[in-house]
């Protein structure tokens, strides 16, 4: 399984990432998930979220999740970008691309990845009001 993991304090450049997609002709499904910062948290308006990461461990934990996906689903490739630092409301904090033969495994693996990362990858949020 091809993997590409980016943890960055720069805005996520979706068009540039799209340009670099590799879609081998035996693959039938691509899923993108984009998590964006919303302009409120627990009902109160916010300007941004400040993301903090324990980056070395975050990378390792992401790789462990990718290992699990590789074992469980026939996924061709995963590209994941997580932004850290200040992310303004309306901007993307997470971008995931998953390429697979069929949509079933693409959806299953993508949802599992996001659910699990929220349990184990050491990244924290702090709302900025």
């Amino acid at each position, binding site marked *: 399984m091809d993997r590409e993991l980016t943890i960055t304090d720069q805005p996520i450049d979706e068009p540039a990432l799209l340009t670099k997609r590799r879609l081998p002709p035996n693959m039938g499904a691509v899923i993108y998930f984009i*998590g964006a910062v919303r302009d409120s948290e627990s009902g109160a308006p916010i300007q941004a979220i400040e*993301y*903090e*990461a*324990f980056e*070395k*461990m*975050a*990378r*390792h*934990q992401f790789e462990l999740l990718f290992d699990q996906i590789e074992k469980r689903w026939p996924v061709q490739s995963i590209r994941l970008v*997580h932004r850290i630092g200040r992310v303004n409301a309306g901007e993307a*904090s*997470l971008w995931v691309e998953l390429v697979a033969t069929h949509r079933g495994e693409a959806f299953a693996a993508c949802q599992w990845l*996001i659910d699990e*990362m*929220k*349990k*184990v*990858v*050491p*990244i*924290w*949020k*702090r709302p900025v009001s």
Partner: protein
Amino acid sequence: MDVRVNFYSWFKDMTHCSETVVSLPANATVRDLKTAVFEQFPKLSAVQNSMLIAVGVDYQGGDYTLKNGDEVSLFPPVQGG
């Protein structure tokens, strides 16, 4: 042995620092380390049920035996995405 302990997220706010060093006997476990850390930062013991603990880049439980050079991280539940 001396073990470095890192704090993340609002654990830093509670301890007013991002790292500390605790002295432990040889063969001390993560559980022993927590006891030592709670002595230094009593507020942390109140949130120990929602505390995650890593040694290096892997999560570890209380029984894990620390060795010289280990770096321990204590942090609240993660919230990426």
